[in-house]
């Protein structure tokens, strides 16, 4: 009993510190009002205190507790120290569902905002956990798919908003998680929901803590595993959905609080589940009161959720070394697939369909009246001059993303690996954001900053993972943690409602719009050179997936070959991102399609992934340019919209 008491002391002291800190700052916030004279008739200051400031602080406490409990439950049931509503994509799923409903079916929101959020987060959780189950709930695979889904949902939500309402940025604020309140309605309703879920959680604490003994022992002790998991995951998902529906996405609290609890000495699952919510409440309370205090002096509206994400995502980076890493063999590559066509037939089919595709993309379009037309006559040359660079740049970018994705998937043995996940795209986005907001927004300036951002992230990733000899999964997770951080920063910038945020959103949505003949030529040349280098490294790619031991045995320098391949993938991603934006997901899809086509060796797969990636991007660009003409839908968005369902289908089919 003594040890247990000692284990409780740390978290208790820490929670007390957090709460005291929060109280101190909140006191600074409310003190001027309380000490001021009470006006006899119209006393708005006290009204603000009672109906805005205090509910906001209460909301911070409750939302913090709910998210931390959700994170602790996820971490315990998935036995994964990185799991939380943000890293599993649950909050982002709820957010996307709410955005879609408020844009297209606003009537539904009045009826059941919580139901919509629940549905969104349940779908997200089902996808992520479903994918994770197939990898034996590996911590990396789970968090990787979760963060990919998070980014995808966040990107899609932002783009949908931007496309449908140009001047209203409300959903940006909301997505970034603002805690501002004008009544007690939200904190009170959140309180009873948290209470209900917390009650259910107390019922499963005992069986849940037995999970630590391992599956077979806990089954022997009478735990019904499947039912327990469903109940706990449902609780965690519901908590995240309620918070998201009430105040938007508050990033990373569910990750940070249990981690802090563990660092303070909470070791047993019961302690973790009890102390995490307390610490989470204190954490968000302190964070929000500091933010209110600072914002009060700045006179700006800072969304709390995005700010917690800015501080929370580096913690994810810091936590990485604690995870045990075990290299897995690429199961997908080992799978053979019989195919009715020979390689030669496949090549002919690929080339012919590619030529037809390019011809359509070049010659078919919409005329000023809106009718479909094949180019001819007076404007033939001029229009081709406009279209050709887009088509070829789209092809080159898609091909590069395809090959980069293939390299990453081969290196990590993870089918959710992709260039978007590396964070290089995020770095480029961040560069553009700085160029837009801090310096004059000229095109060449944006371009230079995007390159600088991409290179900086690449350098950070490579340096930070040098110690682990570039263990692939660590590199990927470091990359995606950076993406999440950049996403949060962009969220803060966008929520200011500044018209420049629209420029940033457009760039993020991945449009080939800014491509001209020079950039297209540069893109094609870079693509050709980098893909040729990748082809030269095909032997590494055939052998490295077999694992570190066989690779060393045949004389491949592990660290150097990994560094070079990551560097190559990074360069390709940076070059492609500059034209098609950070969210295309072509790098995720093309390698899958190449494998589905029956290609097995690295060289064949690489050529296949390049052609398929390029082809996908050309199709996406064509659809985006013509479907809503004269309004353009960004190619990156189109490819993500078209590709994600295909990908989900492929992943679910394969066992």
């Amino acid at each position, binding site marked *: 009993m003594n040890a247990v008491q000692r284990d409780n002391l740390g978290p208790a002291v820490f929670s007390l510190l957090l709460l005291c800190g929060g109280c101190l700052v909140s006191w600074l916030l409310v003190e001027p009002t309380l000490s001021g004279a009470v006006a006899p008739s119209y006393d708005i200051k006290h*009204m603000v205190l009672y109906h805005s400031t205090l509910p906001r602080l209460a909301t911070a406490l409750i939302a913090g507790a709910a998210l931390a409990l959700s994170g602790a439950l996820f971490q315990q049931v998935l036995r994964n120290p990185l799991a939380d509503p943000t890293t599993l994509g649950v909050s982002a799923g709820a957010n996307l569902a709410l955005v879609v409903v408020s844009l297209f079916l606003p009537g539904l929101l009045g009826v059941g905002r919580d139901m919509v959020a629940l549905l969104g987060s349940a779908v997200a959780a089902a996808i992520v956990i479903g994918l994770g189950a197939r990898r034996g709930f590996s911590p990396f695979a789970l968090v990787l798919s979760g963060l990919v889904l998070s980014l995808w949902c966040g990107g899609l939500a932002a783009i949908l908003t931007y496309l449908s309402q140009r001047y209203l940025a409300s959903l940006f604020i909301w997505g970034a998680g603002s805690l501002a309140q004008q009544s007690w309605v939200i904190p009170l309703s959140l309180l009873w929901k948290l209470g209900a879920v917390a009650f259910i959680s107390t019922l499963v604490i005992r069986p849940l803590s037995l999970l630590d003994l391992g599956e077979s022992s806990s089954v022997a002790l009478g735990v019904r595993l499947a039912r327990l998991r469903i109940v706990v995951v449902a609780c965690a998902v519901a908590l995240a959905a309620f918070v998201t529906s009430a105040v938007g996405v508050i990033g990373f609290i569910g990750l940070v609080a249990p981690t802090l609890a563990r660092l303070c000495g909470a070791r047993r699952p019961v302690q973790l589940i009890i102390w995490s919510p307390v610490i989470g409440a204190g954490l968000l309370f302190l964070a929000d009161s500091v933010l209110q205090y600072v914002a009060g002096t700045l006179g700006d509206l800072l969304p709390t959720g995005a700010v917690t994400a800015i501080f929370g995502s580096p913690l994810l980076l810091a936590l990485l070394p604690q995870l045990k890493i075990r290299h897995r063999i690429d199961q997908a590559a080992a799978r053979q697939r019989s195919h009715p066509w020979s390689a030669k037939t496949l090549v002919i089919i690929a080339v012919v369909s590619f030529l037809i595709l390019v011809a359509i993309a070049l010659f078919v379009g919409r005329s000023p*009246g809106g009718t479909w037309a094949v180019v001819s006559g007076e404007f033939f040359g001029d229009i081709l001059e*406009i279209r050709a660079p887009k088509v070829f740049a789209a092809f080159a970018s898609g091909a590069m993303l395809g090959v980069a994705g293939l390299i990453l998937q081969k290196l990590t043995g993870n089918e959710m690996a992709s260039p978007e996940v590396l964070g290089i795209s995020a770095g480029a986005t961040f560069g553009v954001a700085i160029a837009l907001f801090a310096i004059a927004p000229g095109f060449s300036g944006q371009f230079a900053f995007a390159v600088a951002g991409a290179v900086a992230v690449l350098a950070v990733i490579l340096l930070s993972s040098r110690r682990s000899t570039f263990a692939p999964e660590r590199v990927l997770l470091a990359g995606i943690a950076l993406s999440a951080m950049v996403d949060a920063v962009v969220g803060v910038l966008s929520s200011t409602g500044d018209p420049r945020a629209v*420029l940033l959103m457009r760039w993020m949505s991945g449009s080939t719009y800014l491509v001209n003949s020079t950039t297209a030529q540069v893109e094609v040349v870079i693509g050709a050179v980098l893909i040729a280098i990748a082809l030269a490294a095909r032997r590494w790619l055939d052998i490295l997936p077999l694992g570190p031991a066989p690779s060393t045995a045949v004389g491949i320098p592990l660290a150097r070959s990994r560094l070079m391949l990551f560097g190559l993938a990074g360069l390709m991603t940076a070059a492609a991102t500059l034209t098609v934006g950070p969210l295309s997901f072509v790098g995720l899809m093309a390698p899958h399609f190449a494998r589905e086509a029956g290609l097995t060796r690295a060289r064949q797969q690489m050529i296949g992934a390049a052609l398929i990636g390029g082809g996908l991007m050309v199709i996406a660009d064509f659809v985006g340019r013509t479907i809503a003409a004269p309004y353009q839908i960004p190619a990156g968005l189109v490819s993500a919209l078209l590709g994600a369902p295909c990908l989900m289908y492929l992943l679910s089919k394969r066992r």
Partner: protein
Amino acid sequence: MQISRRVFLHSAAAAAVLSPTPLFAEIGGQRIVSLDYGLASTLLSLGLPPVGISDLADWGRWVVEPPMPGSVVDIGSAYEVDFEVLLQLKPDIILTTPYLDELLPRLEPIAKVLRLEIFTPDGGPILPSSIAATRKLAAELGREREAELFLRRSDAFFDGCRARLAGRSIPPLALVSFMDARHARIYSAPGLFHNALERIGLSNAWTRQSNYWGFETIGIEDLSTITDPDARLIALEPVPSDVLPKLVESRLWQALPFSRPGHLSVIPPALMFGMVNEAVRFAGLVTDLLEQDA
């Protein structure tokens, strides 16, 4: 003589209505394309309807008046002009703003580009900038006479509004666009709406200077910093459907002076990123509202 807002703004489009050329309208030998709403509506007032404008599809949602002639062609979003369509319109002149500078290298080979600065970090109040930009535009297009007439008419309109409201005791007005039930965008100096209010002799209840577009994003509770207990709140359409019902539930809102009957009004949409015509529309809408109430 007093002119109504409708008469004022609809006379702007008269030139185009008189010559109903279906597609590729051409007046005065100049085929003009505008990549900015404010500049496009100013063109109408100068008697030079454009052949194409950007974001035509949303014109009725944000600008509303003056109505665009049916002959005008939509060339897509201002940020992503459809160059294929733009090229086929064979424009002589393209009007643009500093926000679209990245398009300049691609616009310049197509036609003469006129770049007008209205919203700039050190540009000062928007209405005077808009008037200056109108004169500059007119000088470039050889329509100085029409511009002076137009500006004189708009001055007369503002004076008319001022006269209509003179003698009434009108409290300070706070101008907002609701973004959701918890947040709003509030308009203040140096923005167009703020200038228009001052021009017709009204005062803005939100006294803090905002960004150079003239707005600031706030939480609803920040409205309590408006100290004048008589202040009125004017919200511009579109108001999201769940905002007003949710506000009514809020105790804080109930305590704000704006929740009293007659202190919150909703007026039809008006464009804050506009020029003189948009200021006229806004002033007209506000004057109509205040006149009705009193």
